[in-house]
């Protein structure tokens, strides 16, 4: 029924009703509120459907927008560029501009048109649509184009804005031949490694020229590296051929290699492990390497828990706790804020300087200041050359000091704004200024870090002349950098993410060996922080730091992997992130090890404590039982009547019992006055036994299983000899137990009653056998043997402990060996580290 109503309303709204029906409907509408509600509802639905249609369009437009943007960036994240050998590219002769074509949505048809003008005929054309801010593109085939801001000229003027880059490549013989391309330069034949065509257009279809000052950087993967390749320019000749002219030598490019093919371990690390026949997997070796970081902390906790006496264990737990609180303290290391003294009084900003610890011996100072309203400060990345010589990048210098050295250069502490205006590219910060400078401590003592900050602030009216501000901050809690290259830092970049950087090169691999030799984190930082610099520049810088072997490297003049900024910046950010992650992981691993170890210690201690309680209880029970047993004998002896009923089998069967009483009566056991009652006594005999080869066991015990009592008694050895006294009225079974790492060894003596039975050899048994024998002995006794399981439990725990402790000791020796390889500069004596650690703990 409701269907018809909806239908009728819809027909009414669509004006599809006959005049009569319409009148009737309106009549009812006036009378019926429900109908009116339905009508409104349907109107809403109709409008909402219209709205949904518009939203569909909006969403589609949005998707398209993001896709276009993403398309140009996508490659950066995934691209794997392997060997770049030689490039030959040419810029086709300038063609006449074409009529304006503004419609972006007709991009496809524009592309089609442009394709007709492609410089290389019959070769597929790829287009990159670059937004103004896009500077690097990576095609699916691995072609990388770096197109800086001013890479192109339009009518002789630098062009910035969206651009379409048309790209063609012919790298294999088949394509070249199919396309009818020639490889002739004048009269000389060329061997080609590939031909490439590139043109650029505005989105309107206007042809752009390459700015000769900036250029477009192209990297093309090729299969084989050929020496002596040069870059030729192609000129169309009249007969339709291409003549290749104007050869340019290629810049010497670093030899790229996939990260997993490179070796960045300290020299000798793998060799040593191989020698020790250690695991060969990269993962295992990485994790061992990583675990070497802060190894001294682990060492401490191992050493103190390697003894098995109770007090030491307690200490180990204490230690464990203190290491934990150390690390908390470490992470909560207070940042010290000192408002700096500003040298410039009027224009200067009020700078705040903070210290953040980033490692044992490294830290960062964070400089921040509130900018006056409307003012901006230039980023460290601001380049006046790109901004019509305006603006001045913020810089920081330090006074020469033996206490610290700066690592890398000043960085922006927050995202700066990039603005392309009439004055070129301005990179600046608004609101607050924030900069970060890393440094490394060269001393264990607190020191004052003095730096000089130079900057310029501007507003729309103009700029304040560069003020120089002296800033200083007291640094405490750092130790002198000395140990070597932290494994976490090496592993952080040793992964595929860095495959396209100078780090993933054979050249850097070679340098890395020398870097390990310098033991200077700062040297490594220079390479990892300057991914966009040519290698030779960094080499020279390192050699300037006094490391002579790098002078040779610098002379090689190996260039850099010149990906443009967005890329290297991304990687740098990733690098920093990765270091943090790895550190966290290392800490987690270390903590886990500690936890396991302390967990072990704790459970052992628990077992021990339980054992203690049990044995105490057992002893008291034993004593009580013995007293009870002795009682009838005494009663008999005294001739008094006892009213308590006993069931003692074999009781009084031994006449010798009585025989000996006299002696005891004559020798009172206590100083009770003899006058009151004759002292009831029991005859005891000495029992002595020793274990042959007692030294072969970590621990030996003797167990007494009295036949008449449902208890048992453990006797500990003194110098491998057991000496106890046995009640002459009781028959005992004796079990001798020796424990060592490999298991249990036992010997049984049935029904002994005093005397020196001399030396007994033990016989190794399996754990099951041991359990079984003990059960048997236990069964052999009176009706209610005390549970033996608890005792067994403890025994096994004790036994296992030897193994754990010994493994820990051996592990430590192993780690010490490897450690000296990983940290060649570390002082081998571990005590050297402790004062340093102590000083770190102090707030």
């Amino acid at each position, binding site marked *: 029924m409701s269907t018809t109503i909806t239908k009728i309303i819809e027909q009414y709204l669509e004006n599809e009703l006959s005049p009569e029906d319409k009148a009737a409907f309106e009549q009812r509408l006036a009378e019926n509120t429900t109908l009116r509600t339905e009508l409104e509802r349907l109107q809403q639905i109709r*409008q909402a*459907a*219209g709205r*949904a*249609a518009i939203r*569909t*369009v909006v969403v589609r437009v949005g998707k398209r*927008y993001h896709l276009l943007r993403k398309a140009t960036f996508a490659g950066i994240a995934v691209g794997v560029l392997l060997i770049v050998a030689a490039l030959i590219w040419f810029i086709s002769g300038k063609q006449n501009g074409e009529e304006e074509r503004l419609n972006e949505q007709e991009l496809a048809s524009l592309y089609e048109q442009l394709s007709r003008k492609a410089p290389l005929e019959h070769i597929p054309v790829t287009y990159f649509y670059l937004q103004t801010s896009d500077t690097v593109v990576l095609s699916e085939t691995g072609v990388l184009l770096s197109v800086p801001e001013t890479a192109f000229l339009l009518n002789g003027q630098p062009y910035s804005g969206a651009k379409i880059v048309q790209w063609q490549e012919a790298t294999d013989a088949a394509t070249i031949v199919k396309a009818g391309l020639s490889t002739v330069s004048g009269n000389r034949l060329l061997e080609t490694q590939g031909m490439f065509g590139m043109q650029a257009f505005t989105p309107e279809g206007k042809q752009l020229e390459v700015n000769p000052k900036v250029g477009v950087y192209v990297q093309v993967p090729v299969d084989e590296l050929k020496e002596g390749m040069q870059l030729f320019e192609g000129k169309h000749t009249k007969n339709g051929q291409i003549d290749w002219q104007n050869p340019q030598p290629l810049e010497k490019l670093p030899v790229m290699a996939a990260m997993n093919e490179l070796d960045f371990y300290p020299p000798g690390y793998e060799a040593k492990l191989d020698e020790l026949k250690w695991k060969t997997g990269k993962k295992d070796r990485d994790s061992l390497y990583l675990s070497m970081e802060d190894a001294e902390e682990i060492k401490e906790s191992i050493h103190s828990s390697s003894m098995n006496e109770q007090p030491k264990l307690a200490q180990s737990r204490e230690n464990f706790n203190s290491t934990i609180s150390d690390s908390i303290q470490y992470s909560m290391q207070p940042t010290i804020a000192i408002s700096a003294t500003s040298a410039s009084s009027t224009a200067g900003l009020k700078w705040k300087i903070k210290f953040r610890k980033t490692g044992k011996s490294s830290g960062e100072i964070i400089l921040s200041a509130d900018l006056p309203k409307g003012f901006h400060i230039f980023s460290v990345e601001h380049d006046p050359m790109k901004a019509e010589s305006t603006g001045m990048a913020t810089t920081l210098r330090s006074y020469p000091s033996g206490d610290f050295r700066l690592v890398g250069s000043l960085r922006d502490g927050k995202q700066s704004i990039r603005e392309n205006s009439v004055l070129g590219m301005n990179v600046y910060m608004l609101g607050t200024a924030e900069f970060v400078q890393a440094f490394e401590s060269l001393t264990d003592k607190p020191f004052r870090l003095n730096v000089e900050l130079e900057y310029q602030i501007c507003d729309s009216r103009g700029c304040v002349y560069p003020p120089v501000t002296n800033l200083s901050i007291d640094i405490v809690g750092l130790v002198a950098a000395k140990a070597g290259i932290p494994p976490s830092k090496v592993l952080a970049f040793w992964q595929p993410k860095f495959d396209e950087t100078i780090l993933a090169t054979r050249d850097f691999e070679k340098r890395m060996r020398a870097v390990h030799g310098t033991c200077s984190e700062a040297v490594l930082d220079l390479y990892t922080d300057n991914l966009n610099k040519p290698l030779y520049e960094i080499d020279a810088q390192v050699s300037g730091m006094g490391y002579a072997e790098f002078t040779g490297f610098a002379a090689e003049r190996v260039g850099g992997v010149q990906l443009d900024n967005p890329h290297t910046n991304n990687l740098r950010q990733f690098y920093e992130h990765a270091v943090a992650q790895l550190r966290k992981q290392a800490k987690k691993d270390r903590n886990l090890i500690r936890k396991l170890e302390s967990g072990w210690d704790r459970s052992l201690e628990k077992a021990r404590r339980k054992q203690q309680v049990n044995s105490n209880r057992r002893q008291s029970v034993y004593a009580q039982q013995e007293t009870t047993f002795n009682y009838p004998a005494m009663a008999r002896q005294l001739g008094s009547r006892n009213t308590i009923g006993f069931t003692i089998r074999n009781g009084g069967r031994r006449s010798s019992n009585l025989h000996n009483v006299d002696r005891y009566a004559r020798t009172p056991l206590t100083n009770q006055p003899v006058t009151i009652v004759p002292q009831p006594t029991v005859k005891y005999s000495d029992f002595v036994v020793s274990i042959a080869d007692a030294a072969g066991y970590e621990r030996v015990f003797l167990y007494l299983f009295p036949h008449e009592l449902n208890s048992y008694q453990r006797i500990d050895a003194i110098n491998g000899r057991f000496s106890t006294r046995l009640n002459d009225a009781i028959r005992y079974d004796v079990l001798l137990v020796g424990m060592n790492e490999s298991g249990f060894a036992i010997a049984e003596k049935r029904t002994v009653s005093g005397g020196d039975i001399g030396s007994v050899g033990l016989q190794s048994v399996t754990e099951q056998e041991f359990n079984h024998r003990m059960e048997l002995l236990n069964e052999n006794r009176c009706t209610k043997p005390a549970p033996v399981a608890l005792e067994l439990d403890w025994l096994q725990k004790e036994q296992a402990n030897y193994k754990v402790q010994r493994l820990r000791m051996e592990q430590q020796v192993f780690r010490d060996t490897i450690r000296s390889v990983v940290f060649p500069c570390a002082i081998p004596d571990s005590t050297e580290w402790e004062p340093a650690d102590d000083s770190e703990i102090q707030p």
Partner: protein
Amino acid sequence: MERSLTTQTDLENELRTLYRKWPMMKRFLITIGCSGAAAEDVFQEALVIFARKRTEPEFTLTVEPFFYVKNTCKLLWYNEARKQGRNPVFALEKDVEQQDDEWFRKEQQLRQVETVLKRLGAQCQELLQLFYGLGWSMIDIAKKLGLRNDKVAKVQKYRCLEKARNLVVDQEMGEEIIVESENQMP
């Protein structure tokens, strides 16, 4: 048909132009306290509102479309923030505040109905959108959707409307719950 197609192209062009300002708009929205994740929703809603408004015969733009959208964004976020019980970190300028309050409120109501329509089948959604939104004829819709002829399409339209009506009634019944869950949205 001819007309509506060109209108659609016009609309898309205009929207594309506006969408290029998205990074700027995002920055703006973030500065007034909108989360980055929610920003695009707000922006798209503002575009929807703009697109609807511009078809109204008596509507004349007094400002650049970009500023109209920007103000709408601001207004939308202002309402959203208030709904979430947060104190907006900014005040509305007079001109923004006066932006056709009643009409704006109705738009927000329609947005709810629109959300309800999302629960319809894909074919129903497309049919209703093509018919009411883009003004396609039943013949074209039948072709597009692979229906035998326009009569079948029309019957289908009634069915879809009926389903939509039931969904809306359901939603009205459970209004509170839905409103509440809407509030959860960022």
